[in-house]
């Protein structure tokens, strides 16, 4: 009998296409927006997680300033430096290197100055003073050339990101060309591969010029230490190392803990916490949109039932039981909202494709969310079809037969 109801539902939906579309409207909008938002969220989550995965498991990041939970994750920090107050000194760097369990420390220092090439200024990029272990620690590969090694620390060499190559040199492989920082020429000896998104290390390599720390000191100006990447001897030692660094640096900073130490796990934890909140929010939106959609369906189903009173009378006269009428209308409502949910998912997939093409976002639509969305909308349809269907089932056949067809 279920398949009968299904066929009946299909035929009456086909018979009133516009009305059916109207009925599904709420569900379509609800499902498509929820699926789109969840897909975007999943996409960002994947990007963050995969980036965090790429960096060394033994990595710990020290940043100046006390970070609050809320600031731990925002979309801006994914792409640019956070201009946090507070400071790290070279002494902090050197002392950290001496902490037990620390294998190496890589400084990230912002060098003040303007970059020129061919008497053309480039103001958007960052000049970063660092040391040789940065690529291995961030798991960042070079597309061309090589990173500098210890023997080149005092030489004026530079490794650049893809955006710099494109915008400043306007070519893909400007190796051997030189750019000018504070009146000194630096020879480009390597170009990074495209960095897909900023790591939890919060460093946009695509738009950076990396030079040896010692060379940066030689050309004068200030170097502001934005971060220290610390590699522990092994991943298990991370928490001990973090504790030791904290006590060392607190001493250096006159007893104040005006810096933040974050391991990979913690970075994931904070992003997960934020995503949990986002998920709750989406669930709330979904809940409301399903209720609104459900009320819409109920409304129109009530109208449909009154309009089809005569039909109900005829069906009863030729032998339909109340239960069969009930089943027919519930099925109709369920099919309407199932189809609405399905169309909503299609819209969401289209929206995601548009996002993928027009923005950097990489929305991920999982089968789970699709099933949940379609399942929930069918459920909504069944629930909101109950009352109208009961009304239809209870109709008196004789009175119904007398009403207009």
């Amino acid at each position, binding site marked *: 009998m279920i398949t009968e109801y299904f066929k009946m539902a299909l035929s009456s939906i086909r018979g009133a296409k516009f009305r059916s579309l109207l009925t599904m409207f709420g569900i379509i909008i609800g499902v498509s927006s929820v699926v789109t938002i969840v897909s975007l969220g999943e996409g960002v989550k994947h990007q963050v997680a995969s980036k965090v995965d790429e960096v060394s498991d033994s990595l710990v990041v020290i940043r100046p300033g006390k970070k609050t939970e809320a600031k731990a994750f925002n979309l801006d920090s994914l792409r640019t430096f956070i201009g946090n107050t507070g400071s790290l000194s070279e002494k902090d760097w050197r002392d950290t290197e001496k902490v037990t369990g620390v294998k190496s420390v890589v400084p990230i220092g912002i060098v003040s100055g303007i970059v020129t090439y061919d008497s053309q200024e480039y103001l958007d990029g960052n000049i970063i003073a660092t040391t040789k272990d940065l690529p291995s620690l961030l798991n960042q590969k070079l597309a061309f050339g090589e990173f500098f090694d210890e023997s080149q620390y005092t030489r004026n060499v530079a490794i650049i990101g893809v955006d710099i190559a494109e915008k400043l040199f306007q070519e893909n492989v400007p190796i051997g060309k030189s750019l000018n920082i504070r009146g000194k020429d630096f020879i480009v000896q390597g170009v990074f591969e495209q960095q897909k998104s900023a790591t939890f290390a919060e460093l946009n390599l695509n738009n950076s010029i990396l030079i040896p720390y010692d060379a940066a000191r030689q050309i004068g100006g200030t170097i502001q230490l934005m971060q220290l990447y610390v590699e522990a001897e092994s991943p298990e030692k991370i928490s001990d190392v973090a504790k030791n660094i904290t006590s060392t640096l607190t001493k250096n900073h006159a007893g104040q803990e005006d810096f933040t130490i974050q391991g990979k796990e913690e970075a994931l934890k904070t992003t997960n916490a934020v995503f949990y909140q986002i998920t709750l929010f989406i669930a709330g939106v979904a809940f409301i949109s399903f209720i609104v959609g459900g009320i819409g369906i109920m409304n129109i189903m009530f109208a449909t039932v009154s309009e089809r009173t005569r039909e109900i009378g*005829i069906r009863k*006269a*030729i*032998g*339909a039981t109340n239960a069969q009428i009930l089943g027919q209308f519930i099925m109709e409502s369920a099919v309407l909202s199932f189809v609405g949910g399905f169309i909503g998912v299609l819209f969401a997939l289209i929206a995601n494709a548009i996002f993928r093409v027009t923005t950097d976002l990489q929305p991920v639509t999982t089968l789970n969310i699709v099933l949940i969305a379609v399942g929930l909308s069918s459920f909504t349809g069944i629930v909101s079809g109950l009352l109208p269907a009961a009304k239809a089932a209870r109709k008196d056949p004789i009175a119904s037969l*007398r009403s207009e*067809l």
Partner: protein
Amino acid sequence: MTSKSPLISIEEVSKVYGFGDATTVALEEVSLTINKGEFIAIMGPSGSGKTTLMNIIGLLDRPTHGNYKLNDKNVARIGKIKQAKLRRDNIGFIFQSFNLLPRLTVLENVALPLAYKGVMQTRRLKAASNALAEVGLKDREYYLPSQLSGGQLQRAAIARALVNGPSIIIADEPTGNLDSVSARVVMELLSDIHKLGNTVLMVTHNPSLTRYADRIIYMLDGSIVYDEATAVGEIPKRVQNAVNSLRSSDEEEKLANVSALMETMPGPDKEKPKAKKKKSKKRGKKK
């Protein structure tokens, strides 16, 4: 005839609508016995309770008082589910306004009673197709009701009423919306069905159609005032006289006036006209 128990046995059935000052007595202690294979024409003026009686016999409605035995089973107070199933299995309805569902094809319409019975799709479409062939609509199976003439619609409705193999066909003014030619075709069909041994109950306002029946019941104010067997093909004298006594030259109008005229005609069993207090002659307004 007396040895077998009757198909339908109604005892002192009353139907009262509304309550208080708005009470309408649609049927008043009607008793009626119908045997298998009868073709009964039911006549009477508008509001005399013909449809009400058909609805009760057809298990669409329930009597307020009295007993109704169908196939020796008491069905006057059965539950709604049982009522629907008995209706589905025993009754075939034919309405004045055809009542085919506009969105289904003729074939699907005819197959619908079998769907509610739980017959599989292929089998029920085949049965529906056969039923349509019997009423001469084989070539209209996939038409929509809106694409058929009134006569064709009523034939399709007859096929739908027959598809279940019901024991009783109830036709409430089946030719009321048809021209005389279509009406004839429909009546011949009903007559054929009757000849095959089916029981047919037909309400009509047209006295000339009583010639297809083998029994005529005349109703007045909720009671049966005339119940007489006739030979098929013959219009009883009483009805004939009523028609003849009309001087109107317009055939249509003549037929329409017959009922009004017959209202004054006394029944054979000379039932004293009961004093009925509250009764509206108008058809119940729906609300």
